[in-house]
């Protein structure tokens, strides 16, 4: 295992910093079903960390534990050196964690711009009265937030659909808008739930490039769930492999790829 306090350099020359989030012996049960069994791993500053596994392995449950949506029966979540108490989703958001969803959760009737603006909610402090009458901080804030949002729109190359209602967009673009909204929150940790699910090869390549660019340009720490093995191996610095709620592998893509247990569980055992 790596020394927790020391920085290390990845194969492509990026520096990975200290621990941002640490999962300690997490166990999550739904009634009698154990979705996650005693799993521990960490996420370090500036890395792209993937959690992979076959269907039903408990990946999404894990992400929901990380985002604070599920509270595990056993184990602790440490964020920035502090043990996290059970909290509501908006409190988690304020801590600097943003996420996207596997089955897109955007406001379908609103424009792309408005959807991305909602990501700035935690950066607005004008009260209801000020916003309604365009007084006090409201205007300056709106301008400031719009500028930030426009930079993200530019970054993700969605200028052409800025004013388009989300409902009219194809699936791949909706995914990109969701990423934009998550980025608008300027998160320290970005959680992506199957960002490439249901995409064609070209869309996957685009999305991979955006994820890498986000990590590179903004230095955002990213944790993602994915079951497309190829994408994950190209994209991430370190990979956790889950199967039936248990962790069966953890390490760099190369280490994971050569792990026999992972090969058997994830890629399947040859039936002679």
């Amino acid at each position: 295992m790596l020394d927790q306090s020391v920085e290390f350099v990845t194969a492509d020359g990026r520096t990975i910093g200290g621990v941002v989030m640490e999962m300690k012996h997490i166990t999550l049960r739904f009634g009698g079903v154990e979705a996650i069994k005693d799993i521990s791993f960490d996420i370090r500053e500036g890395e792209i960390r993937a959690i992979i596994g076959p269907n039903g392995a408990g990946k999404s449950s894990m992400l929901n534990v990380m985002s604070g949506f599920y509270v595990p029966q056993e184990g602790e979540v440490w964020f920035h050196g502090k043990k996290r108490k059970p909290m509501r989703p908006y409190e988690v958001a304020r801590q600097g964690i943003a996420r996207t969803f596997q089955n897109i959760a955007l406001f379908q009737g609103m424009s792309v711009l408005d959807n991305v603006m909602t990501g700035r909610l935690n950066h607005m402090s004008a009260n209801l009265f000020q916003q309604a009458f365009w007084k006090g901080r409201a205007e300056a804030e709106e301008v400031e937030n719009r500028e930030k949002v426009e930079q993200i729109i530019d970054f993700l190359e969605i200028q052409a659909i800025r004013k388009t209602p989300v409902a009219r967009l194809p699936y791949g673009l909706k995914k990109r808008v969701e990423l934009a909204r998550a980025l608008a929150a300027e998160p320290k940790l970005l959680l992506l739930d199957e960002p490439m699910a249901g995409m064609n090869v070209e869309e996957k390549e685009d999305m991979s490039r955006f994820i890498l660019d986000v990590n590179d340009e903004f230095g955002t720490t990213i944790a993602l769930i994915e079951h497309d093995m190829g994408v994950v191996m190209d994209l991430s610095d370190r990979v956790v492999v889950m199967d039936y709620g248990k962790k069966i592998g953890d390490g760099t893509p190369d280490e994971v790829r050569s792990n026999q247990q992972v090969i058997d569980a994830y890629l399947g055992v040859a039936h002679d």
Partner: protein
Amino acid sequence: MAEVRANAGREMSLPTLLQRNAERYGDRPAYREKEYGIWQSWTWAETEKEVEALALGLLDLGLKPGDYVAVIGRNRPYLYWSMVAVQAVGGVPVPLYQDAVAEEMAYVLANCGARFVIAGDQEQVDKVLEVQEQLTALEQMIYLDPRGMRKYDHGQLHSFKALQAQGRKAALALADELNARRAALDYASTCVMLYTSGTTGKPKGVVLSNRNVIETARNSAQFDQLSSDDSILSYLPMAWVGDFIFSVAQAYWCGFCTNCPESPETMMTDLREIGPTYFFAPPRVFEGQLTSVMIRMEDAGSLKRRMFHHFLAHAKKVGGRILDGKPVGLLDRLKYVLGNVLVYEPLKDTLGYGRIRVGYTAGEAIGPEIFDFYRSLGINLKQLYGQTEATVFITQQPDGEVRADTVGVPSPNVELKIDETGEIFYRSPGVFVEYFKNPESTMKTKDKDGWVATGDAGFIEAASGHLRIIDRAKDVGKMANGAMFAPKFVENKLKFYPDILEVVLFGNGRDRCVAFINIDLTAVGNWAERNNIAYASYQELAGHPEVLKSIASHVGEVNRSVAEDEMLSGCQVHRFVVLHKELDADDGEMTRTRKVRRAFVEEKYQDILAALYASESRVFARTEVTYEDGRKGEVSATLEILDAEISASVKQLEAAE
């Protein structure tokens, strides 16, 4: 008098014209670009400072007089400044097509021996890096958008902004040198080198001098009374001569504002927001807009739809005549005014043509109906005929003498002659200096008296003095029975149908003509959606029986119209096939300006062609395709071959009587 002479000296190059404009139009906008959702703008005075800083930076980096500097990227003010900054320090800018693949770029970069490359973004930088080993002359690269390149080795890679800062820092030490280099520019110095896409062989570098560029800009600006009040949207490739003349030369001569879109996809929105007064577009842009208007009107409420069609019919009747200043009855005029308020003005505003004063189309023939549609709305759309070698202008249509079937009268100071084979020759101040490192081609194209062969066949209409183009001279041939074969003539007629994107006609030296046809995915896809026809791919749609039936009826109609032409009635399409893939520049089937490479297509699809001439009713084709990122793949399909309805020609009818 003294001032006139002082100005004359300053009108010999673009960098000095920039200085003139900074004084004359200092606080008026020179460039606008939409970024972060807002139109950012720079005045002429600010532009001069930006260009100055960059020029000093290039000087500091060691750019020498006569160095070639490649400029690659989409239309952005920074890249336009780059070209002028390069000129200011005595270099020659060479704009490249940004969608060219790496090997194509390697050829041009090696051919001109570019020492510097100024690239728009990571994509362009990567392409150059990919072929770096073949480029012995390449030393420094400058990029605009830093995104994704943080980890690149910055030994020979510089950011645009950083280079400008470096230039500003070195201003004291280098200002004298910059002034001296700028002062050394005269009419004979090379202004720009532009590579022609070339329908055959490797691209050739066309060297244009300051005289070529500035005199052409002056003449053409006078022709259309362009002034500093005009504005233009720059969205066509920077490597294309037209963009250089419209967005750089004329803009600098007149002092008007150049507007750059936010991204290629937002071009239509940006066009509407800017509402340029001066506009250029190839026919396909006008066709595309008309198609989308018609599609949207199908979805409109019935009142709106009826109003639209009613007034459009009226515009068709009198609109063109009103625009040409011909007599029109009072009632018709009043009705046109009403139509203007209810339909034409709102429509023009939606399209982005609300303020247009002069619009041009060229490059390909435009469908007469499309052309008339825009003119009937009161948009002064005209045609011009030009070439890179002529610094664009050979002929153009004066206001009031606009027709769909001619390309106008010779531009100011252009002489025209037609030789015995029908090929068009011209001589003008815009005639290029030479093809770079290619005296042989230069000699073949330009004779010692300065006449340039266009390679196009045409004739001058006796009554109007307008030029009419028949076809590329080398494409005009003879059929087996000696009848004239002019493929463009037939292809254009077919391409005017919205569901047909591209046509290639064969028949030179044969007894009859056959054709390859590409469907227009937008139009046909929309039709399919409306009629609940499901399709999984381009290939499937292109082979759909209903689609084939409608294409066959178009071919029949075109044959009827071709039959009416005495000279070309032999060019009727006997058999045709709807291709399973779009002809594409990435596969070498077209040039970057979307002209079909006939010989290449004939060679590549020889099996299909053979089947067309045999009596087979279907053919199996397997074709290699190149994806945008350069990887290769394969598509295969069984194509139906259809027989077209043939009409009796005028001559045959006469004989029968």
